[in-house]
């Protein structure tokens, strides 16, 4: 931990950055913090309970963070994929951000109750993680970590839904959509949802019904999943932020699978890798087209 704190102090003291965004111990587990004073850097921690994806604070729309000046943020491997996503869509320039990469041995699913990474507590997104050692960051701290136990429940839940008939799936999602209260916490938490005026807020024309009944909600979540297809890094923050426990990551996981199968595209942490949006191949499969 001290390695992180010393680096943060040095960066703040010699002015390379104006703020260091990381985690500090909070009442119910680590919580994001932005540190501007060198003395406060010893509050920084990093452990298996740091599940948040701090890349969301690089969204240019967060003017209160931008006002603080050039940021350094502490990122796990999966977070760098979100940073690459933002770079791919020109939201900020790479030289305007300092990335402090941390070796990561997997994180827990619920930071409030769970402290150690075990077979039961490991987060589903850590299964098959190929970025335990983050690439393309300015610094890499901590030591290499062994592969955590694999929790592939999310794939099983997607497979279980796939196995259902269309009507059963419709019934399942209809009941989930009834719960949604349209608080848009999922949009707020997502590092890649960066629009100034979201299409869900447009009323002329009101493509997505704003009333929180199941129909409006289904349309909202359909559009959200479409917008994240080929972009979502699977950090799971949307589901963790959802007050009504709607299994949103199932939708995004399914989209990841479809994009991987159809376009051989896996969300990558390299901003140079072109996203499938706007790219096409002559031989994209069209067996479903008459």
């Amino acid at each position, binding site marked *: 931990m001290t390695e992180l704190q010393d680096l943060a102090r040095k960066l703040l003291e010699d002015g390379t950055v104006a703020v260091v965004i990381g985690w500090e111990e909070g009442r119910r587990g680590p919580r994001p913090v932005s540190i501007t004073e060198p003395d406060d850097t010893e509050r920084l921690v990093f452990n298996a309970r740091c599940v948040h994806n701090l890349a969301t604070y690089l969204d240019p729309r967060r003017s209160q963070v931008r006002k603080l000046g050039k940021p350094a943020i502490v990122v796990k491997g999966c977070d760098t994929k979100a940073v690459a996503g933002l770079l791919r869509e020109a939201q900020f320039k790479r030289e305007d951000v300092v990335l402090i990469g941390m070796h990561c041995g997997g994180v827990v699913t619920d930071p409030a109750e769970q402290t150690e990474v075990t077979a039961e507590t490991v987060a589903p997104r850590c299964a098959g993680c190929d970025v335990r050692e983050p690439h393309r960051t300015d610094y890499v701290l901590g030591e290499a970590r062994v592969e955590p136990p694999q929790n592939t429940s999310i794939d099983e839940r997607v497979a279980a839904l796939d196995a259902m008939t269309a*009507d059963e799936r*419709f019934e*399942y*999602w*209809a009941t989930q959509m009834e719960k949604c209260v349209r608080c848009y916490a999922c949009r707020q938490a997502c590092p890649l949802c960066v629009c100034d005026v979201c299409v869900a807020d447009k009323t002329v024309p009101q493509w997505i019904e704003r009333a929180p009944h199941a*129909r409006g909600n289904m349309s909202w979540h359909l*559009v959200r999943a479409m917008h994240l297809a080929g972009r979502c890094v699977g950090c799971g923050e949307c589901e963790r932020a959802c007050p009504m426990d709607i299994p949103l990551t199932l*939708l995004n996981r399914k989209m990841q699978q479809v994009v991987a199968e159809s376009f051989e595209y896996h969300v990558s942490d390299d901003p140079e890798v072109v996203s499938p949006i706007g790219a*096409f191949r002559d031989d994209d499969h069209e067996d479903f087209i008459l």
Partner: protein
Amino acid sequence: MSEMTEPTTEFEPRITAFVCNWCTYTGADMAGTSRMQMASNVRIIRLPCTGRIDALFIIKAFERGADGVIVSGCHPADCHYTAGNYHARRRFIVFRELLSFMGISNERVIFSWVSAGEGAKWREVVNETVERVRALGPFTAYHELASRQMVGGAYETEVELPDVREAPAEAGGAS
């Protein structure tokens, strides 16, 4: 929607077609000039290119009670704008899987390439879609989503899924 004709015994599906102006719309015109009789359940909305056809249109059509949606445009390499249909194809590969994952059966969304000279093929697409959707029956489920009451609804569903995190036992304790 005009006042429904007196309810015939057979279910008459309402199908919306989003078609591109240069190929399928002209193909439908050609079916007209060749007097090719076809089912009258399809209502055509003309757009410059399949590239312009947004997933939102299809969602809105189902929201408003369409029983089936046709999306049709130029064959690959024939697009008047050279690449509109390629982008559309890629978009619909993903959207179609998403709809099916959400439980809206793929049988209700029909994609096709119909060129300006294929009036006969357009008639086939229309007739085949009408029969296919008539067999599936009306799709009021999406429209009636709005009237599902949340009171206790979500919490009593016994839909068992492995490892679905149990919502707290009593209702409303979601903090």
